[in-house]
């Protein structure tokens, strides 16, 4: 039987390896969603993104990566508000998602490599997440936004969006 420490180390390595794939999938789904697809595809994408955040949350908690778990949980909440049209799908919110994915990736790598985390980045993210939650709007005022035409790529640059992999 494996010793406890070996088991935990294996779980952490597994988490890191599979989380990278999950983050890339999340990034791709978010980019599709940002193109404002038709209703059925939109719902599929929301379900897929919610499931990926939910899975990252569950697996991060199991290996004791509580900050990753909390950030994934917060972004799951933001996405659910977007799905319910209580938050408007806009560039700022999508950027918040992309930056959160970058932050999650950074947290996982830093933790495993024993490196310090840049605290100001996370303070900024958490402040914006809380700010977004305060922007919750009654559904009726957002009806027009749900039928807007697909928009062009914004040109914003985020590490995962460029298709790169973190090492």
């Amino acid at each position: 039987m494996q010793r406890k420490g070996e088991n935990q180390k294996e779980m952490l390595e597994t988490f890191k390896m599979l989380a990278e794939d999950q983050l890339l999938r999340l990034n791709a789904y978010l980019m599709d969603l940002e193109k404002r697809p038709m209703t059925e595809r939109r719902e599929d994408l929301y379900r897929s993104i919610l499931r990926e955040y939910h899975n990252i949350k569950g697996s991060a908690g199991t290996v004791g990566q509580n900050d990753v778990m909390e950030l994934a949980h917060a972004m799951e909440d933001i996405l659910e508000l977007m799905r319910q049209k209580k938050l408007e799908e806009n560039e700022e919110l999508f950027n918040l998602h992309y930056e959160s994915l970058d932050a999650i990736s950074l947290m996982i790598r830093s933790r495993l490599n024993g490196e310090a985390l840049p605290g100001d980045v996370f303070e900024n993210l958490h402040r914006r997440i809380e700010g977004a939650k305060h922007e919750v709007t009654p559904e009726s005022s957002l009806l027009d936004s749900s039928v807007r035409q697909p928009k062009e790529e914004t040109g914003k640059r985020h590490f995962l969006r460029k298709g790169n992999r973190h090492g």
Partner: protein
Amino acid sequence: MDKKRILLVDDSDTILVFEKLMLGSLYETLTAKNGRLALETALKEKPDLILMDIMMPEMDGIESLRAMRAQETTKKIPIIMVTTKSEKARVETCYKLGCSDFINKPIDKIELLTKVKKFLN
């Protein structure tokens, strides 16, 4: 003596690996990535216990549980549902449908082993 067999059901590869690492040295494990595949595997393999997530694509854990309880082959297999704290309402539904127990994510190894052992030893 042959090891007891547990069917692990989750759409997350990470969680399936974690569960295998937690249980694998004591039990034989099978896996399925959604409720439909879980039902098919359970009917074919007749595992001794099923550990099943709720939120999954194609067929979720609740529908799979309902289907398993309606089948003669699977209706008596102990089923432990894996859930999160935000899914309290679903836990009640699972109990009404005949789940044996539940465990919260993040999964605690000791709690998992204790609950599994309760049904298999």
